[in-house]
């Protein structure tokens, strides 16, 4: 299959994320097979593939919510190892948005956003709150700041989750199926927020099935299946001229679903 993989084109000399022959197993199950991918600064990469293809596992390896067993992962010039200091550095620079939002239900929206800046970035409280209100305004829900996550709709919660991650001023944002748990009418508001973020020049790796979003913002699309990267290319190349049967099958399935 390797002849189908387009060479990763580095946009900038120092890549934001570099995965080199990464392997991972769950027990006997080989979930990542020789995954190699380079994401340049300010590049937007969309990762798609059938469920169980390893796409979530791959992006969770980037901030070590999962650890890889073989290969090298370098994020923003720092290699991910067992060294906790390196990990702390990387987690400060990498924001993540989850499928199930994972807001802290016992804290208000504002507290959700200010907790990490205050304790990890050691920012004064007033400054952190100002920053949080700034980002909450950007995701268009400043009026909800004093409420608790349980009082918000799914779409609003996910926008708060994006704001919370942005409050750490990350260099890279990871999105793990951010719209999969949302009702159809709320998907758009979250995607709009993500499009705006993409336009601001944020480096983004996004696992999603939203092909419209991929077409609109992605510099490159990565297609994964059975733990390996099968094809990489621009959205146009991938959707209009898929090279492999596996991608053709996948595209026909998700297009039928839409």
């Amino acid at each position, binding site marked *: 299959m390797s002849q189908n993989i387009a060479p990763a084109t580095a946009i900038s000399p120092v890549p934001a994320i570099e995965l080199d022959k990464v392997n991972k197993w769950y027990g006997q199950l080989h979930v990542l097979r020789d995954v190699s991918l380079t994401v340049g600064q300010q590049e937007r990469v969309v990762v798609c593939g059938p469920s169980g293809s390893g796409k979530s596992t791959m992006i969770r390896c980037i901030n070590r919510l999962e650890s890889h067993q073989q290969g090298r992962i370098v994020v923003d010039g720092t290699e991910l190892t067992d060294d906790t200091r390196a990990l702390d550095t990387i987690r400060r620079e990498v924001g993540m948005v989850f499928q199930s939002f*994972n807001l802290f239900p016992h804290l208000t929206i504002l507290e959700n956003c200010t*907790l990490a800046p205050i304790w990890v970035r050691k920012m004064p409280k007033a400054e952190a709150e100002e920053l949080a209100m700034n980002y909450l305004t950007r995701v268009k829900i400043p009026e909800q700041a004093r409420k608790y996550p349980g009082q918000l709709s799914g779409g609003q919660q996910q926008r708060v989750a994006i704001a919370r991650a942005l409050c750490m001023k990350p260099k890279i944002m990871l999105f793990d199926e951010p719209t999969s748990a949302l009702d159809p009418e709320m998907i758009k508001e979250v995607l709009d927020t993500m499009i705006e973020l993409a336009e601001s020049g944020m480096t983004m790796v996004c696992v999603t099935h939203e092909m419209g979003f991929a077409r609109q913002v992605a510099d490159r699309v990565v297609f994964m299946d059975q733990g390996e990267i099968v094809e990489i290319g621009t959205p146009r190349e991938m959707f209009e001229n898929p090279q492999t049967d596996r991608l053709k099958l996948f595209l026909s399935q998700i297009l039928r679903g839409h």
Partner: protein
Amino acid sequence: MSGTALSAIRPPAIVLGPWGWARANLFSSWWSTAVTLALGYLILRWSLDFVVWGVVNAVWTVPVNAQGKADATACYSAKGVGACWAVIADKYRFILFGRYPYDLQWRPAVCIALFIGLFVVSGLRAFWRKELALIWLVALTAIGILMWGGVLGLAYVPQDMWGGLPITLILSTFGLAFAFPLAVLVALGRRSTGLPAVKLLCVLYVELIRGVPLVSLLFMSSVMFPLFMPEGVNIDKLLRAQIAIILFAGAYLAEVVRAGLQALPKGQQEAADALGLTYWQKTGFIILPQALRVVIPPLVNTFIGFFKDTSLVLIIGIFDLLTAGKIAISEPTWQGFSTEVYIVLAAIYFAFCYAMSKYSHGLERTLDRARR
């Protein structure tokens, strides 16, 4: 949908008020009516009997002779038909304070008030600030000074003279105040993945301590432990019992806390990790506040259990409330009036336990409301 006005349909009418409630819950069928009537009759009869015994025919006071000895004749003649509350009137100071010197009993009385004040203050959310730790420190120091004396012109009272309610409050308050943080650490240790030695230690501690009865731990602390100590080193008996209670309560509470930790969705940990919070920040700000809130009911259940279990120190000769009551009725004058004393003891235990239970319900409600 938006253009059409939907006609509102009212919910079906329900009969409200006590009569409606009674018809729905007590007299909904002939069978339920029969049970209601039968139980109603029994409850009414027993409460009437109790009122007749405990109030109408009760002996409230008995004459005291010149030597201060009570004359219980009136009680003996009323035995069987009326309660003898005179035993309480005569012995209440012994029951509450044990063998603490009679003239100095204002000191343990102040201690009881301090304990209750401490509980009330700790329960008020307005006091949930850093200063609360200081309040505890001051109050517990004051209690220590009052009980022991020997400073500030207070006469010294050795620990083996202490007794009654202060002992129960000391054992349970210190017991839970130390056991709870211990339990949290053990529960966290038992779930740690990075430190296998710590995990093993925590598992061993919980399983070993939980595997033996509290009675045997108390025996060990009072009989066996001194044998292992070097000569001349003598740790106070109360302190040894206290440590046994802390260790025992810690093991049980650790399992309750662990249940709360397990109930927490994994996503909460991951979100905290992804934000770059350290282990202790994550634990303190995200994990514990949520995990402990989930386990308030079983925590309070364990607290209540341990408050009463402190009475087991009776077997190693420490004078807690229950022991003091038991000794009070062993006096020849009052032999045969144990029922009255035990009712009062039960009422005291009940007052504390019910307060805890009520408070935990209130706490659950306020914490719930904060999120809606």
